[in-house]
């Protein structure tokens, strides 16, 4: 459009048809190039622009605090005055030489294992049951998710009451049937079981639904073929269902590992003080971290512990990744 106008202005009417191309081209290309560049930018940059809010937010609320925590962890930090003196690795040394830290680590893993393993076995079993032809399917499926909807603190309050040492429901029942009561708040292993019970109560249903979805995605032909070959239900379950669940199981295991290492609400609400028991029976890493930070206002030390926890989770994440890779490759070859 503009090109013809210029043509008219310069008065090259007669030669117009011959002359324009060379003039036309560079000008036209320049104009086109801009919009082209724009659209190329659009193509190349837009995706980043669209996801940038998340990352900007992450840098501000995630990365910055993480880095700042690292800085504080090398200091003797005074929260109120906002000042600190650099003391190198002293805070790390202190944390790592505390018997409490190692007890907390032990408890965290113990509670994690006690909750994850039975939880997954139970979830697979329930999912397999729900995968059968049963009446009122939706009712049962929604039913297993109900505990998940409850707030963790509410769950912890109810269970803590049930697990009372003297007048708790569980011990009352145990005594009624002639067994001796369990000291839920003084025996370390018993307290882990009680806390794991709360975790299991909350998360079994959630994992069941995920596993159920995976089970329903398994082609029915496999089962029909197996049935024709004369395989029993049990054999079908172990030879078809379980192997097909592997990728889903990996997902479930990774998420429950992350959740398990950060367990906080349940042990915090387990007794009236929320500091992990008189002998640190159910002190977990996050609970210890909270107590150092918000109980003792020792943020340097808490920051060091936070970084140690971060490194532990990272290490376990790497192990998870390696195992996952192996399994997924196996998966590919078997299919």
């Amino acid at each position: 459009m503009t090109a013809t106008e210029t043509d008219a202005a310069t008065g090259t009417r007669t030669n117009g048809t011959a002359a324009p191309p060379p003039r036309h081209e560079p000008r036209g290309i320049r104009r086109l190039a801009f919009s082209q560049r724009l659209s190329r930018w659009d193509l190349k940059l837009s995706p980043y622009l669209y996801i940038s809010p998340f990352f900007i937010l992450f840098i501000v609320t995630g990365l910055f605090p993480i880095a700042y925590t690292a800085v504080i962890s090398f200091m003797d930090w005074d929260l109120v005055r906002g000042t600190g003196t650099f003391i190198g690795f002293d805070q790390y040394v202190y944390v790592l030489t505390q018997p409490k830290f190692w007890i907390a680590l032990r408890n965290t893993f113990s509670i994690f294992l006690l909750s994850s393993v039975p939880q997954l076995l139970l979830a697979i079993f329930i999912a397999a049951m729900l995968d059968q032809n049963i009446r009122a399917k939706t009712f049962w499926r929604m039913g297993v998710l109900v505990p998940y909807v409850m707030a963790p603190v509410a769950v912890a309050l109810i269970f803590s009451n049930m697990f009372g040492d003297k007048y708790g429901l569980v011990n009352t029942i145990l005594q009624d049937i002639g067994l001796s009561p369990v000291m839920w708040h003084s025996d370390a292993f018993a307290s882990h079981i009680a806390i794991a019970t709360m975790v299991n109560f909350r998360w079994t249903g959630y994992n069941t639904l995920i596993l159920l979805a995976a089970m329903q995605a398994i082609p029915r032909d496999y089962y029909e073929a197996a049935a024709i070959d004369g395989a029993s239900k049990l054999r079908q379950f172990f030879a078809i269902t379980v192997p097909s669940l592997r990728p889903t199981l990996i997902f479930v295991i990774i998420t429950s590992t992350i959740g398990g290492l950060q367990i906080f609400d349940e042990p915090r609400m387990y007794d009236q003080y929320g500091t992990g028991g008189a002998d640190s029976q159910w002190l977990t890493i996050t609970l210890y971290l909270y107590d150092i930070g918000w109980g003792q206002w020792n943020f340097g030390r808490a920051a060091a512990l936070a970084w140690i926890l971060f490194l532990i989770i990272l290490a376990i994440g790497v192990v998870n990744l390696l195992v996952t890779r192996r399994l997924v490759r196996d998966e590919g070859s078997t299919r």
Partner: protein
Amino acid sequence: MKLSRRTKAIAAAAGAASIALIAAGCSPAADSGEGDGGKIELTVATFNDFGYTDELLQEYMDANPNITVVQNKAATSNDARANYFQKLGKTGLADVEAIEVDWLPEVMQYSDLLAEVPSGTADRWLDWKVQAATDADDRLIGYGTDIGPEGVCYRSDLFAAAGLPTDRESVATLLEGDWAKYFEVGAQYSAATGKAWFDSAGGTYQGMVNQVEAAYEDPDSGEIIATENPDVEDIYNQVLDASAAQSAHLGQWSDDWFAGLSNGAYATMLCPGWMLGVISGNAEGVTTWDVANVFPAGGGNWGGSYLTVPANGEHVEEAQKLADWLTAPEQQIKAFVNAGTFPSQNEAFTDPALTDYTNEYFNNAPVGQIFTDRANAVTVAPFKGEFYFQVNDAMQKALTRVEDGTQDKQASWDQWVSEVEAIG
């Protein structure tokens, strides 16, 4: 002292809930702001229930037309504590901030960030109340509000079953004396009934250690002396020797402990004024709880609060005037009537509104007079320094370990010593 932080939350909530509800019910929306031309707005941050109703604050606004007072209430003392330390020395604190004695030792480390209470007002309060909020440079930084003088609560039906006197005057005479006397009567009770005399070693220990002037730290140097202090070791041994037979082993504020309030698991309990509300709120069906005007080895205090004025606030001078007014005896009496917060002001103790106050649940015990006497019996202001909490918290856990049978007395003491040595 983790336990009492929680304590106050529960205590004030339960103890004052009924009165607060009534007060809130009949308060005629008192915020009648008439345009704020040149008006100064002062904020007062409290927690639980200090008894500062809208009417009370309105009185101040009526007397000072250029001032508007707004109260922010935190749900629990813990919330208030977190907020306080995150903002102290920076911006965002209210003009007048309430603090609790449990975290007073932490606040005292930053006393330079708080405005000093103008001289001449200090004799308004009990000596020990003032002493606890005075720093090393002799600056008083807290306006005392309420205190928790301790008596002994007991179940008269359980006393009767053991052949002990049941009316509160005779019980006071019976228990008059030192801790050895208290445990001696306890042994007698436990032998007669086979039941527990007191609720927990932890709660009883707290009452005992609060009578020691410098239990854990040297007031001059701030050094931790807890593990070498013979007083602490004596108390530890004395309470644990008694607890084997006499304690119900129910940690305070545990679910079992609350159940024990109504099912008679223990016959006595050390009882600050605000504990009455906890008992009556959690043992509604019981008619035999009573309170005796006595406390072993003199007097004891558990809990209480102050108002502070952050020094970098916008209206420090006006805030000081407001804090001064709120903690004057006349206003504190009103707060007591509103929320049961027992006054720390000398003059308030002669006020009939306090001295004539009775508690129906405790068989109409003259609790106003009883706790006034108990407050006057307190002679020691225990020194609580920077590490008080951590040392005391570790001690409470050590006592619990012995009570629940995880460790014996010596092993638990040794673990406590090693834990205390790691503090700092």
